């Protein structure tokens, strides 16, 4: 199993029945593949649909039905079209149960940075600032390191996405919960030791008792 699939499978376990969930583009969008249908979860695409479905069969794409990354999608039975004011009204108003976002850095305070690298890359925040400020639960899904450097750092050096503490960080090496006291290591990745995780992490991790390995049912 590659790193991204480990992450997507583990994040999928955070999804509870009946939730409204927003998945960011890229890695977070893979989470949908591992959420069982019988949970009756609704996925929101912030560009305007609640009840996002999978990719349509070849030739049945509709130019007016895409996800936030511009990819063609379908709508599930019971879907609703919404405009951007309603879409972000749901997000900012606390109606979104969970958002899963990628990250460039997360720090010991649980702050996320994911929208720009000054002088290098300025994609813009898109909906990320509203999502992190407004969703009930914010899960950061990202690979543990970038070019060998830890993405989990003592303090973000990149501009923050929000002043709010995120709820959970899921990488292929660890599940980490930011708390008032700091970053608590909750789970280890498959075949990874606590020492391995700390060695790959620039931030200080709090280890309480035995740290179980992720369970990733097929």
């Amino acid at each position, binding site marked *: 199993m590659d790193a991204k699939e480990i992450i997507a499978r583990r994040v999928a376990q955070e999804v509870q029945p009946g939730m409204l969930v927003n998945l960011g583009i890229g890695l977070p969008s893979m989470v949908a593949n591992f959420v069982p249908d019988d949970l009756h979860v609704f996925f929101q695409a912030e560009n305007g649909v609640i009840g996002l479905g999978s990719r349509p069969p070849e030739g049945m794409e509709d130019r007016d039905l895409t996800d936030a990354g511009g990819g063609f999608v379908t709508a599930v039975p019971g879907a609703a079209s919404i405009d951007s004011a309603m879409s972000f009204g749901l997000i900012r108003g606390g109606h979104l149960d969970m958002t899963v976002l990628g990250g460039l850095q997360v720090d010991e305070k649980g702050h996320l940075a994911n929208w720009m690298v000054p002088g290098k890359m*300025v994609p813009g925040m898109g909906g990320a600032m509203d999502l992190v400020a407004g969703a009930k639960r914010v899960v950061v899904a990202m690979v543990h390191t970038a070019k060998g450097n830890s993405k989990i750092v003592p303090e973000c050096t990149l501009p*923050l996405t929000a002043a709010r503490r995120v709820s959970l960080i899921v990488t292929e090496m660890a599940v980490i919960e930011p708390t008032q006291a700091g970053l608590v290591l909750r789970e280890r990745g498959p075949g990874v030791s606590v020492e391995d995780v700390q060695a790959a992490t620039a931030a200080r991790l709090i280890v309480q008792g035995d740290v179980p390995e992720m369970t990733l049912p097929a």
Partner: protein
Amino acid sequence: MKRAIRPEEAAEMIPEGAFLLIGGFMGVGTPHRLIDAIVARGVGGLTLVNNDTCRPGQGVGKLIDAGLVDKAIVSHIGLNPVTQKKMIAGEMQVELVPQGTLVERIRAGGVGLGGVLTPTGVGTLVEEGKQVLDIDGRKFLLEKPIRGDFALLDARQADYVGNLEYSLTAHNFNPIMALAADTVIAEPHHIMPVGVISPDAVKTPGVLVDYLLERAH
């Protein structure tokens, strides 16, 4: 009754330096024929408000390619390297606005509110230069309303009163932008006779729309 005009007629109304609100999200729900007509006319100095700047050669990205946009007020430019290059070269100004704040600022401009009080952006770079209000112990940024000279909209269907319906993820900013410009031009895929659209299906009342683009041939 609204006259249905040709794309070139619409483009000719738009003067140099105009402030344009254009519907769309990565080109979905964008009035493509209007954009082509503006590019063909080539009058620039424009300010563009859109969710993003799309991709080079697509949607509002064509306006960027043609060098017609002096300033873009958008939430995302990550998929348009031309915008990034022009921004870094100082050929174009880019104001990045959180997406939910952007749509509420346009709504505030359209419905006569003095601004938006949002928690989004508090404690980030977005806060810089803005008034922060403490309301009952929580912090909110005061974000200013946005209004345009023109709103250019994509719609699924219209009638000749100007009532508009939108489709699926092609709604996005269109219904809100319809409220917030001096002149509103809609590019519907279909135009129906008056009276056949149910009042309950109308998302933008025709009183907000000034011109309809004639149907594509």
